[in-house]
């Protein structure tokens, strides 16, 4: 069960895993995620299904090492099994023919963006993908994104790849030269906050995929809650995608820090 059939390093800190999960491969859609638990003592963490192969019965996860669980997961090898893997969870992305769609991803958000880029393209949209990172080495999935994008714009903080600047600079540039009908953004909460502020000003309807802390991923606990349009929503069942202009990103940023100290204290478990 849940056997890893292939593993590839995208960069030092980003790893692609292809995992046996025939039922999930069959029922998943773009935007869905899974919850994994690596071992008996492990926690449950959400990961987006980046791709699926129904024939082979596998799903692809792209994992960024940021803490104990993601590091443990990335240390597994081909042939190893992930103890628990459940999904597909969340609501699928609303895919439609919008016209021109800007997909803006940064950091951890690039992996979950990939299936959306693919689906948007297949739905007949003109897709412009903007990938942002601090520096060249942290840009991932560029190849894969090109396959499904009409244009890929790379933005780095230090200008070591693509253009120097933030993801928002990229969006501004595109919006200045053509009409954008829809924007999808996934990344660190702070990035999505600024993307949202910008697109609100530019009046571009925007969807943000929120990566809050989760436990069960089935609506049972409320750990993942955020305020959207003044109402409390559960990201795992009501989302993960929401109208970005309605999301209270400041609250989300605050809540993401809930267990910072406990998580840091746990890092000895992976030798850090």
């Amino acid at each position: 069960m849940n056997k890893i059939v292939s593993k590839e390093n995208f960069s030092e800190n980003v790893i692609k895993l292809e995992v046996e999960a025939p039922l999930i491969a069959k029922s998943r859609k773009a935007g869905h995620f899974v919850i994994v638990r690596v071992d008996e003592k492990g926690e449950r963490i959400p990961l987006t299904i980046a791709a699926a192969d129904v024939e082979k019965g596998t799903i692809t996860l792209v994992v960024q090492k940021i803490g104990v669980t993601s590091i443990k997961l990335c240390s597994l090898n081909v042939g190893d099994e992930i103890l628990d893997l459940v999904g597909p969870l969340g609501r699928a992305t609303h895919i439609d023919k919008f016209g021109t769609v800007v997909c803006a991803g940064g950091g951890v958000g690039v992996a979950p963006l990939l299936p959306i880029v693919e689906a948007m393209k297949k739905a007949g949209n003109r897709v412009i993908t903007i990938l942002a990172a601090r520096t060249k080495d942290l840009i991932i999935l560029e190849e894969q994104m090109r396959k499904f994008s009409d244009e890929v714009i790379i933005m780095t903080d230090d200008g070591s790849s693509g253009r120097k600047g933030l993801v928002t600079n990229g969006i501004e540039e595109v919006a200045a030269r053509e009409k954008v009908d829809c924007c999808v953004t996934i990344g660190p909460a702070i990035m999505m906050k600024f993307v949202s502020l910008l697109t609100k000003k530019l009046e571009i309807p925007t969807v943000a995929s929120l990566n809050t802390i989760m436990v069960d991923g089935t609506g049972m606990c409320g750990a993942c809650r955020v305020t959207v349009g003044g109402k409390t929503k559960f990201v795992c069942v009501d989302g993960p995608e929401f109208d970005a202009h309605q999301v209270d990103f400041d609250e989300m940023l605050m809540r993401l820090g809930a267990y910072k100290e406990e998580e840091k204290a746990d890092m000895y478990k992976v030798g850090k």
Partner: protein
Amino acid sequence: MAEDRNVAWREELRKSLSNKERTALTRVKMNELEPAYRARVREEVNQGLTKEQALQESKRCLDCPNPTCTQGCPVGINIPGFIKNIERGEVLEAAKVLKETSALPAVCGRVCPQEKQCESQCIYKQKLKKEAVAIGYLERFAADYERESGQISVPEITCKNGIKVAVVGSGPAGLSFAGDMAKKGYSVTVFEALHEIGGVLKYGIPEFRLPNRIVDVEIDNLRKMGVDFVKDCIIGKTLSVEDLEKDGFKGIFVASGAGLPRFMNIPGENFIGIMSSNEYLTRVNLMDASNPEYDTPIYKGKRVAVIGGGNTAMDSVRTALRLGAERAMIVYRRSEDEMPARLEEVKHAKEEGVEFMTLHNPIEYFGDEKGRVTKMRLQKMQLGEPDASGRRSPVEIPGAVVDVDVDEVIVSVGVSPNPLVPNSVSGLNVSPKGTIVVNEGMQSSIPMIFAGGDIVRGGATVILAMGDGRAAAKAMDEYLKK
């Protein structure tokens, strides 16, 4: 039942002691761990009765010709029948009598609200104005005795009928349904969304009240009877109901519980450190977060307020003590008389040092610059007219507010039905509250789909869930044999 009351040994037993002698006996006290010790450990608080104590208590039961206790039991357990077997020293026989009606006596003996059910109807309470026979303690005794004797009878399944049935959810409703159907010869597969089998019995009710090993024995027995368990599988997500049909399942029993937490939607409720009791108990019970070897984090508050007055609230507040809280408070908007929690839980909580702030209701929370909760504002209440639930409703006392310092708040104000299955099946009749609508035979508007437990009743009890599972098994069996 009338017949078995007339068997010779029972008649003799009745004659062996006069009613006067029986009623002169005092109710047994449960052996409990000392409050000061137990409030810091996970060990089960109630240690059970010794055989001598159980025997003594069983003598109090008058073996009434019309046992009113039985009417108080939601599933009609033959109460004097099992108690008299204890009195004559046939404890294994007593366990068998219990199992005629209850699939999980060791669980129910621990968690049923007996003071509202069987014991409230006992003649001692009703007519003699004395303390009821300790039916719950005796039930637990008989079930534990059987388990510890190593002689649990696993029903032999002789003729498999080859018909596949599916169960959605592995709480008490699902488990009891699975057991009954396996006995009838069906091939039963239980699908569970989480990585553990047992539903609320595992992720909700804490170890100090219901040790996991008790539940695991029941699950192992079901395995021995051939029941298949599939974890990490969500019906409506991983597999649809149509998938199950295509796979050859002829009947589906939905027992997916009422797992959705409610919040109060008051200002500041999303500050860090404020969470649902489901999140808190899941972290501690299911994920073992308080054990440093486990990866799931938990915040161990020093001043913890738990909002609510049900069993879930009591479990949360007592868990907070065990995680090191210096001040653990129950904040409840009505008075203690209206509290839905089992009496014993309230008593235990008080003994362990929990503060009860009844007639208080939170109206706002405040946090520090990191967003961590620091203070709650409580509105003082008074009791007004009875409301729809028959309980006197809480009314605000204008202007009476008080601020209390807290660093963790557990919101335990009720749960809603799990919408995953209802939302994913078209044509399923669902009430406005989100519960699945069923007939007396627990059958839904889709003939092959039956449902029971909290998904039908909203938040209810273990015994009702278990009873539903058994009723559904009976009805589905009849339906499938047609």
